[in-house]
């Protein structure tokens, strides 16, 4: 579509789309993101849904948002403050306007600012009219009525249905404003609504009407261009954490040659891993929606016993229920991957909101000493490799492994350079096929001297019939034993096996371009915010080092050296200091925390402030 108005260049933009749950904001945001990705910007997104399925229309709890940050350079977070807010109704304005940068742009759907909606949003008067928005640049657009008007010739839809296309009008307008390629969206509409051509037509028309409105309306004097970012060459796609995690699990199954078995019970924000894997049966993936989380973990463990890659996925309130079964897996020494997509707690908490609250639970939340490796993803796309890594450790060491993600990674997305399959690790293993005892017997707890892993002898293997269980086992034979010294030995062996994994994982990478005396150490989804904050701090002329842990148990073998090399250590966490505690206990360094538990990611700005304060101390 051609352009006549002048075009200005920008380096980066943060847009937030906000509207009622029923307004299709997630779809709008997704499409805008796809266009942006196709255009070649770097980007990061942050959806923010309401907890209710469909809270009452127009109400504050019903507001659904989607933020996308895109730039001509590589970026790390979805942005602290939107520069542009699209508000489909008063509630959306009310909930989001506080986050907007001063001087930012607001596009409001004036049609929705009627008395009823204003009242539901708790506005005594119309904020558009009464000067409340004077700090911002406001575009008043009659989105609904213009959409209905634009679609009056579409056959087979009611005017209510027509009005529903207003999100495509908004998308068209924004696509014009930021010079996004429209083809992808038009093709998407065709295929998505193939079954209902009248809807496809309506959405297409609405989109074009929005685009043309930008082009014609005097309210929009210029449009903006954000040049493509210089990204590594290769084929990209956009990917969310949950999808990356799903793909990682499937890849682990392929790479190991073990059929994937998922035991899961639905829970926000982990359910869609179950839902996505359920669609991949052609990969030999079995998904079992269990009666509860205990059964989900148990079934996965049973599948592992039989030689499958047993995986179970949940969020904190479900993962906590799996603890007893994970303890059994520790005793049985069988592979099991337990995925925890963390959310805000305690208890039911805020189901759709992220938090890093479960680290200590997965480390210690089982009766008695039962060490379990912990892997944590740092970015949405990083969930792919984290899943493969968790499976690798589980398979190689015959151990349960926790894989931590969170609600922010799960739903956030970013461009992903699709890996060449040949670069992925071989994580295959060998089942036991014959006796390993000197006397020709089979010793199920005789360990590999290097990994300390025991043989995995799966049912169906003639001659290796054996019994395993949760009672303490005699070393090597695996027979029940109450011998005191044997128990101590087994406790030590189980500890040594997990500790030994430190030799088999990458070293902690340190980013310290300037030789700083302050280290920021992070884990999990704070990766982006820490990186962005460090850039700001460095841009401000200060020195700071960063390092990010992807293995939380065991720590990479150089972790002690890294942390001891700094005078000051800051550990930002969306909890009250869980990694910080582990680091302090392990290395006796006076790590301090930056801890805000608000059910949302850190802002780069606040972290930059916290780092600056510490650097200057």
């Amino acid at each position, binding site marked *: 579509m051609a352009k006549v108005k002048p075009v200005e260049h920008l380096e980066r933009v943060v847009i937030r789309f906000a509207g009622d749950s029923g307004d299709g904001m997630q779809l709008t945001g997704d499409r805008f993101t796809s266009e942006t990705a196709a255009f070649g910007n770097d980007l990061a997104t942050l959806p923010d849904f309401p907890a209710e399925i469909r809270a009452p229309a127009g109400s504050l709890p019903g507001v659904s948002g989607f933020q996308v940050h895109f730039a001509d350079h590589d970026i790390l977070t979805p942005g602290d403050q939107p520069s542009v807010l699209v508000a489909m109704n008063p509630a959306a304005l009310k909930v989001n306007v506080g986050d907007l940068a001063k001087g930012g742009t607001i596009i409001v759907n004036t049609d929705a600012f009627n008395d009823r909606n204003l009242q539901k949003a708790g506005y005594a008067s119309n904020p558009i009219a009464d000067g409340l928005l004077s700090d911002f640049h406001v575009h008043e657009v009659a989105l609904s009525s213009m959409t209905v008007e634009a679609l009056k010739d579409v056959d087979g839809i009611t005017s209510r249905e027509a009005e529903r296309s207003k999100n495509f009008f908004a998308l068209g307008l924004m696509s014009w404003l930021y010079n996004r390629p429209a083809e992808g969206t038009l093709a998407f509409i065709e295929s998505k609504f193939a079954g209902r051509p009248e809807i496809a037509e309506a959405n297409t028309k609405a989109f074009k009407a929005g685009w043309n409105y930008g082009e014609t309306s005097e309210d929009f004097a210029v449009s903006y261009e954000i040049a493509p970012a210089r990204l590594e060459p290769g084929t990209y796609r956009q990917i969310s954490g949950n999808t990356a995690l799903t793909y990682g699990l499937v890849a682990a199954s392929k790479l190991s040659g073990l059929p994937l078995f998922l035991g899961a019970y639905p829970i926000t924000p982990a359910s869609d891993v179950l839902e996505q894997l359920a669609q991949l049966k052609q990969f030999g993936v079995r998904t079992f929606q269990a009666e509860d989380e205990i*059964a989900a973990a148990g079934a996965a463990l049973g*599948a592992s016993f*039989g030689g499958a890659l047993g995986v179970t996925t949940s969020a904190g309130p479900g993962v906590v229920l799996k603890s007893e079964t994970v303890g059994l897996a520790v005793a049985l020494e069988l592979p099991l991957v337990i995925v925890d997509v963390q959310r805000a707690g305690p208890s039911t908490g805020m189901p759709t909101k992220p938090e890093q609250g479960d680290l200590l639970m997965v480390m210690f939340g089982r009766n008695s000493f039962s060490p379990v490796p912990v892997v944590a993803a740092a970015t949405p796309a990083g969930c792919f490799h984290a899943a493969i890594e968790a499976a690798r450790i589980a398979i190689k060491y015959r151990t349960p492994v926790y894989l931590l993600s969170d609600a922010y990674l799960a739903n956030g997305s970013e461009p992903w350079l699709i890996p060449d399959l040949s670069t992925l690790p071989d994580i295959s293993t060998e089942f036991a096929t014959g006796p390993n005892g000197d006397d020709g017997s089979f010793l199920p707890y005789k360990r590999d001297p290097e990994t300390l892993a025991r043989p995995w002898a799966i049912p169906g293997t003639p*001659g290796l019939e054996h019994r395993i269980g949760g*009672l303490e086992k005699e070393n090597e034979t695996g027979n029940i034993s109450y011998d005191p010294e044997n128990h101590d030995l087994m406790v030590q062996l189980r500890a040594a096996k997990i500790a030994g994994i430190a030799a088999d994982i990458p070293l902690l990478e340190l980013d310290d371009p300037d030789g700083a005396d302050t280290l920021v150490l992070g884990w999990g989804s704070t990766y982006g915010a820490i990186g962005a904050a460090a850039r700001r701090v460095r841009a401000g002329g200060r020195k700071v080092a960063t390092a990010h842990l992807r293995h939380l148990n065991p720590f990479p073998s150089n972790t002690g050296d890294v942390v001891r090399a700094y005078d000051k250590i800051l550990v930002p966490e969306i909890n009250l200091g869980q990694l910080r505690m582990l680091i302090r206990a392990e290395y006796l360094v006076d790590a301090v925390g930056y801890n805000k538990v608000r059910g949302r990611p850190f802002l780069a700005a606040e972290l930059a402030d916290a780092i600056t304060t510490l650097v200057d101390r």
Partner: protein
Amino acid sequence: MSKGNGDLVQLTGKDFKSDQEVRWCPGCGDYAILNVVQGFMPELGLSRERLVFVSGIGCAARLPYYMQTYGMHSIHGRAPAIATGLAVTRPDLSVWVVTGDGDALSIGGNHLIHALRRNVNLKILLFNNRIYGLTKGQYSPTSELGKVTKSTPMGSLDYPFNPLSIAIGAEASFVARAIDTDKKGLTEVLGAAARHRGAAFVEILQNCNIYNDGAFDYVRDDKENRIYLESGERIRFGAEGEKGVVQYADGSLKIVDVEEAGENSLLVHDASHMQASLAFALSRITFETDGAVPLGVFRSLEREVYDDLMNDQLDAAREQSGEGDLATLLHTGDTWTVA
């Protein structure tokens, strides 16, 4: 995966004894069951590596240690769930769950009823001694109301479950009952369970001579109180077959004198009746209410099996979309290339 290479080898009960010393209390009914189970195994016609016994925790749950097969002594109550994961991924195996009344019906009640409704191909043997043996004598969910035990010095307050009623209520496709010491009856029931594709639930009345001795003497010792059910046959029992079961117009069952009532009035057993109501009604005949106890197969209905359906879906998906290709998967949706 290995399918085993010895399917045709002729095994005997002894081949199924493991090298572990059996450690139940002397006189425990579990010994009798173990013997019958070991003796029955060769009838399966499967080599030992194809068999897996999964148990929870309890005296009963120790059984897998004594079987020269694969086995897992897991955690309390969870065996049906664990076995489900194994069975659906390994249709080549014969998976048996061994559990107690506490393990299966107290802590594990939910997993049991879900395994039954799903009709997972598991053979579930519930050793019902109406007590917690391993933890030394607390009442269980099958203990009779008012039972004085360590944890209920003034008598228990909770109305017991009838294991067969709850199983039938949970849509079990196969439900049967036998007695620990009744080798013939138990062997027959095991055979029927093994032949049934799907979840087979077998209650075995088991004497715990330490904490609940004599709980089943009325049918373990008094053979005339055993009602052996035979599909297609009229239901009669007693030393001379002098008693029988009739059904009234309101659906209730009643024990009658055959001579008085007439043989033709007796109910004909039909284990494979479409409606579960008959089996349910039979499950309500108890010693307490009727002075006699039905044994054998109450219900055995062919129904789609969870594991089969799951594996069929995998096949269907492959047929539809071809064997999954990882590269293709990673490239689904919009992609773009940076040069």
